[in-house]
């Protein structure tokens, strides 16, 4: 079947098998391999993307659900094509060593940005609770929590400008 949606700001039309998962569509058909698959039980959160502005686990979403929707993946976070400008949350993760092997990072970032967008004055407890659906095995979460709080503050500051 054919589906049309907005992918990282661009109108996109693709032919998909109805049983295709969004994570597979992104990785296999659209070559957007920044969205990762770390489990098969919707537990790890490495595949989180934004569907119509809300964080979803793309490993449990069927591609037909995208028809008419707006999808944002890790590849769509940066500034204009060709620029190396990063999203404030990405900058915060770099600044505070919020990643090690990088595998959970795209999902963490997408979840973190949604958290910050939802509640600008995030507390540590909010962040820890909000990241329950994202597993990281490397960092022990401490620097991720610090990064998310700093990134959220930077997002709020950027909005104010």
């Amino acid at each position, binding site marked *: 079947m054919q589906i049309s949606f907005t992918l990282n700001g661009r109108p996109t039309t693709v032919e998909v098998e109805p049983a295709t998962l969004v994570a597979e569509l992104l*990785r296999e058909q659209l*070559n*957007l*391999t*920044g*969205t*990762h*698959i*770390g*489990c*098969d*039980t919707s*537990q*790890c959160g*490495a595949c989180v993307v934004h569907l119509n502005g809300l964080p979803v686990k793309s490993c449990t979403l069927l591609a037909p659900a995208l028809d008419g929707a707006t999808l944002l*993946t*890790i*590849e769509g*976070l*940066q500034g204009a094509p060709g620029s*190396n400008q*990063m999203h404030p949350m*990405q900058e915060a*993760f*770099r*600044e505070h*060593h919020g*990643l*090690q*092997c*990088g*595998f*959970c*990072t*795209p999902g963490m*970032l997408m979840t973190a940005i949604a958290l910050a967008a939802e509640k600008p004055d995030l507390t*540590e*407890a909010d*962040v*820890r*609770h909000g*990241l*329950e659906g*994202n*597993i*990281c*095995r*490397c*960092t*022990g*979460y*401490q*620097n*991720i*929590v610090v990064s998310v709080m700093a990134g959220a503050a930077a997002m709020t500051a950027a909005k104010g400008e």
Partner: protein
Amino acid sequence: MGNVIGIGAAPKRKEDQRFLTGRGNYVSDIKRPGATAGVFVRSPHAHAFLRSIDKSAALAAPGVIAVLTGDDVRADGLGSLPCGWGISDAKGVPMKEPPFPMLAQGKVRFVGDMVAFVIAETPEQANTAAELLNVDYDVLPSVVGVLEAVRPDAPQLFDDVPNNICCDWELGDKAAVESAFRKAAHVAKLSLVNNRLIGNPMEPRAAIAEYEPGTDRFTLWTTSQFPHVVRFLMGALVLNIPQHKLRVVAPDVGGGFGVKQFHYGEEAVITWAARRVMRPIKWVASRSEGYVSDRHGRDHVTEAELALDETGKFLAFRVNTLANMGGYLSTFGPNIPTNLYGPLLGGVYTTPAIYCNVKVVFTNTVPVDAYRGAGRPEATFVLERIVDVAAAEMGIDRVEIRRRNMIPKEAYPYQTPVLVQYDSGDPMGCLDGALAAADVKSFGIRKAASASKGKFRGLGYSTYVEACGLAPSRFAGRLGARGGLYESATVRVHPTGQVTVMIGTHNHGQGHETTFAQIVSDKLGVAFDNVDIVFGDTDRVQFGMGTYGSRSLVVGGAALSKATDKVIAKGKKIASHLLEAAEVDIQFEAGKFSVAGTDRMKTFEQIAGAAYVPHNYPLEVLEPGLEEQAYYDPVNFTYPGGCHIAEVEVDPETGTVTLVNYTAVDDVGTVINPMIVEGQLHGGIVQGVGQALFENAVYDESSGQLLSGSLMDYCMPRADHMPMMKVATHSTLCTHTPMGVKGCGEVGTIGSPAAVINAVVDALSHLGVTHVDMPATPNRIWRLLQNASLPVAAE
């Protein structure tokens, strides 16, 4: 151009840009033209004869290209998966080493054992065909626990391994220990289990193999911590592929923790199959598949006894352990519960006599091998638990009994009775630092506050040491290593002075691209931005043993340091010619070669240029070019250590343990990048906390099925399980590594389980609880409280 960023600075990581923007290059991201999909068919039984495999229905399924089984492996005369260590018992009798075929032959020995490989045009077609494969099993009784496996009537995994014992290993002076026990004023005893763990790097394992008939070359992309070792083991010992015809690439790897430091059968099967089908093949494990095939860790059952005199001085320590090896010997398997366990039982104490017996046992479970810490967390847990037990029984404060037995800073180098000699350390300094940082003085106030809410608060200590920097080759050889464990680095200076380093370690989260660039920037005075680190590709990097055992900086960093020294030495020769001065008069500092006592100098870039454009160059005595390679073999292990203090709150209503404070002061030697070291400590600690409170790989005893076979059943630490940790370093320098480094990758995981469990026991000690096995889940604690039959409510 950027600046010099040297040792001790904390630049942001070079590798972050690609990971933050979704541009990492993990194996599962790689697409090869014409690639097929491979799926492994795994045994659903823990123990069974493999009577026959009928391929016909699977072969007839749409898109299927080939189905390969153990018979095909045998017909091609391929080797068994090799074990890198050969240990022996006290009489020198070598361990039992049954073959580990890459696809099962005759028998399957664990749920997940591979019986066939199905190759099809798409993963869906391969999966469908895999389900059509008709495998005739003759199911046998199975055994999963070590205590059961050594019983005379236990199911036998191998005909020639009586009682399933691979090796009855021992270490230490048994007679001296027995004599000390006879004189002891007090003997503390403890039985414990070190729970079985599954490493769970977030990236599941994956591999792609390709054969190019035009050049007769194979390429294997694999999620490995040591691509060169895979090339060697697989090429030379399993598939009989010449080394120069085999390229192994481990690109970005999403976490390892030991799980990816073995040569897996999947790698051999897919590489062999790629030539048979003449197409690239890609296999990506699901998480569930990883649970029944990634090597597991730990799984010990131990009886320990500590003999003390009347003042609480340790006289002797005796440990008897049954260690689970699973169904076959994995790459490092038998080394972990023996050589990386027994020699650490001295800990940071002056215990004069130690004896350790380890029975290494086969069971119908996934092979067990190294998982972060590997042997040393098990040793630390036994020792630090029994020290607390002894203190409680003798009425001595837990900190005081540690102080009375600690090796004083001045006593280093310190020879233990169990082989190893610690070169440097200051356990008392770490303890004092941690006591202050954890604000132990005010613990009573916090405990009272918890009690007022009906909660039990406890404090736990772990003062520990570990041995890492694998490994001094001669020493390792005496212990049974079948190969040396040096490391190599090449420093390639380009004509314009930028530097590319080729190094044999593998970066999968540890920040090597940053740390190693700092070393080069510091030593050569070149800008940090002008140094790139290349790793993980046998076609680009000369050789290497990879990354495990906290060895990358200790051994690889030392090789790199040595190679930069060689670059400087050659640069001096070139400078002496260009500056028309004697070589002994050339000084190198801050990126400049100068003649001592003059202002005559050449920059590093000028020397590099001269080396590659040799017009004015001493060609008769010196070859052009500025590229140096060095190999480094350490003379000893390194011995990081420290003190961890955990503070927990137990809710007696639910049995839930909450970790409320965590403090670690670790001695990791010289710190190259404090930001990265802190990150390693954080991550390591939380993996240890995971073992103590959440994680447990559980097998059903009658069926041998893995019950904790998904992230739904195997509880991983999550963000809201943890408080903000306080970590700090209190470093003494390693005396034998070039930069004084000791390694920091595993300390957190080694120190933390004992600290957490000691805190849980402390919280419950007023109820008569003397030990809690890991993981201290709500269920386990709640049952313990019910059985304590004591008033549960706090006063």
